[in-house]
């Protein structure tokens, strides 16, 4: 029942997003950019690289995937049955073997 409720909320959320016609600008851009423009200041770049075109998409996908796998790996060791067995055997991930 709880899973159904979560799925229903997710579906309503997705439908509401799709029904909203917008450019989906971030508040970091609109609010910060608006204040900067009013003050006559513009963003600069210190780093030599720039995320243009689909490179930005790639970097965000890669970052999300790495973070997702990391969360899954540690989630398993904390909450799954296999992790429970490892914990009871005195093993935890990334712990150095002191033998």
């Amino acid at each position, binding site marked *: 029942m709880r899973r159904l409720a979560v799925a229903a909320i997710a579906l309503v959320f997705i439908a509401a997003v799709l029904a909203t016609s917008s450019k989906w600008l*971030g508040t970091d851009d*609109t609010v910060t950019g608006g204040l*900067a423009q009013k003050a006559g200041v513009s*963003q600069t770049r210190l*780093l030599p690289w720039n995320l243009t075109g689909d490179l930005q998409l790639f970097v965000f996908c890669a970052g999300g995937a790495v973070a997702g796998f990391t969360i899954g790996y540690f989630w398993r060791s904390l909450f799954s049955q296999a992790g429970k067995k490892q*914990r009871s055997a005195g093993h935890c991930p990334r712990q150095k073997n002191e033998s």
Partner: protein
Amino acid sequence: MHIPEGLLPLDQAAAWYAPAMAFLAAGLAKLKRLFKEKPDARPLVGLMGAFVFVVSLMPVPVPGLGTVSHPCGTPLAAILLGPFAAVALGAVALLLQALFFAHGGISSWGANILSMAVGGSFVGFGVYRGARRLGAGLGLAAGLGGLAGDIITYAITSFQLAWALHGQESIGATWLAAFGSFMPTQIPLAIAELFFTSGVVVFIYRRRADLLAGPETQP
């Protein structure tokens, strides 16, 4: 919470860096002590580090308004690991986002640490502890911590922007304008962070109550 490169004057950027680095050093020392005293805390630290990174980078759309913004994640990390450890995780997440994801900046890293990592962690943790002492249930207290941590992050960011970009107007008026512009998008996200933080803390309490048993995280 992701103030970009070049918007803060150098003296102000340095002024934000100094306390941010002090908090970061204290946070790293806390993590080192935690790893030494409780090696089985490593998975939770790894989990929360990845969580703070991805949640604070994720642009979440707000239907109806047509805008997107970021949750913080640091209040949840602070409730589970303590505020100093959460500051260290938030600072690392912000550095990676500035270096590789065009979110934030190197010169504004100190300011962003103070808003999201320090403000989000300490206020979120403080509200959680305060609500527990006033008799609130675990889920409600954690949720209020998530909500407060999210809102305070943008209040601090608004002040940082107002101080740097107020021009001829007063800092107070500029802060109010910035904070008022952030809030329509941020309040729904803060409410979502309330439910998420509450849900995760209650889930962990039911499945692994021992993870909440540290001296700073005793529910």
